[in-house]
């Protein structure tokens, strides 16, 4: 419930993607979108202007990263199709953010899940064979201070608060799944390369997880593909997110991934909130 939704805090958002130092094509895609339904009071002689609080509509930010799999052309196509489908769907359905009671909040979450399913269906229509191109997809819809999360695959979402970095997504790989249920050990999963196999993917076996994170002024939010996390440790990510603008942070994160080897495409979106 967003009863506490208040005047929007200024949110500074930037996104950046890089092919890396080894791959010939960038299979990652991302999008950052701001949506608002503005109510502007052009003129009045009213003394009491609290009505503005009632008619003010929140600004909604959509942040999405996707990392395609299935060969350079297929992976690139998959992540692009999925991100495009999600952006289109959310843009069409955004009317549902007008209401802030619990039932409508669930409807909103359902719409976000539906957006990811739209991307999944598009890919399935395009590639009707089993094992066609697929993609991870991590999406945050930010209606300050609440971040609605829909997550598929092993791209990641983090937030930084008072110097502490916390990952709010859980990787959906066969390694994580089989270790979780006790079927294999971590060592076995590592050795067998199971952490490189997605257990859930848009265009593959889709099992999205849905979540909510409430943010505070001063927090930084990060969405990234694994091209970042395989080369840059959490403490370094935290240090980069701790200062400067969102744009500066995205560039620094990319630079750090490249300096660490740049073996994969790397994509980051950073959102920083502050008055």
């Amino acid at each position, binding site marked *: 419930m967003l009863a506490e939704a208040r005047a929007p805090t200024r949110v500074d958002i930037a996104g950046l993607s890089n092919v890396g130092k080894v791959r010939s094509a960038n299979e990652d895609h991302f999008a950052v979108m701001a949506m608002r339904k503005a109510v502007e009071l052009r003129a009045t002689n009213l003394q009491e202007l609290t009505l503005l609080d009632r008619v003010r509509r929140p600004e909604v930010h959509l942040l999405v990263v996707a990392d395609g799999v299935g060969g350079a052309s297929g992976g690139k196509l998959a992540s692009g199709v999925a991100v495009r489908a999600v952006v289109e769907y959310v843009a069409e359905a955004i009317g549902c953010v007008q209401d802030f009671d619990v039932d409508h909040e669930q409807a909103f979450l359902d719409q976000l899940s539906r957006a990811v399913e739209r991307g999944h269906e598009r890919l399935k229509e395009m590639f009707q064979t089993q094992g066609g191109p697929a993609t991870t997809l991590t999406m945050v819809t930010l209606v300050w*201070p609440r971040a609605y999360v829909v997550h598929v695959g092993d791209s990641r979402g983090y937030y930084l608060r008072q110097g502490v970095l916390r990952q709010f997504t859980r990787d959906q790989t066969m390694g994580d799944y089989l270790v979780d249920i*006790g079927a294999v050990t971590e060592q076995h999963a590592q050795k067998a390369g199971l952490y490189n196999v997605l257990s859930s993917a848009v265009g593959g076996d889709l099992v999205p997880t849905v979540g909510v*994170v409430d943010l505070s002024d001063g927090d930084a939010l990060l969405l990234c593909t694994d091209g970042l996390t395989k080369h840059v440790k959490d403490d370094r990510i935290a240090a980069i997110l701790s200062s400067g603008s969102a744009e500066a942070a995205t560039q620094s994160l990319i630079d750090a991934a490249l300096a660490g080897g740049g073996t994969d495409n790397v994509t980051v979106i950073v959102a920083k909130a502050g008055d």
Partner: protein
Amino acid sequence: MIQKKICMVGVYGTGKTSLVQRYVQSIFSAKYHSTVGVKVDRKEVNLGATTVTLLLWDVEGRTADHEIPTSYLRGAHAMFFVADGTRRETVDALFDLREHARAAAGDVPSIVALNKNDLQDQWRIGPSDTSKLITAGVHVVRTSAKTGEGVEDSFRWLANATLGEPASPTDQSQVRHAR
């Protein structure tokens, strides 16, 4: 369609996520992952002629330096409190957590699960602890996310309670005291 928001509330590591996972997916993971923020799952439950969709908000647990944000609890139709029967302090914390939840969501139906009942050799909860909870007016059940004991019944009981069905807090016949 009837939808009810149920918040899973407790100290960290009591098994909230495992209970939801057992109930929704019928699986159990022994590996511990702390929840960050809230993970939202849904499950339809048939209660006679009525079908209710439970929206299960698995809220990150309370830690020494992190209180559960009340914003997650607002609008809940019921609270599913979870304590770890092998960690006495998680039961002691329930009284304060109930007040915390009440302040956020009002007087909504609630249940207390004394979880990890499969670990009887490490059990730290005595009859007087259970009695205290019952006296405080809560429905207490023993659960094990690992074996599935009590899990389905707990969620069904709470789902019924959200519909205002009679659910006596003193009907505690299924709570067996520690031997």
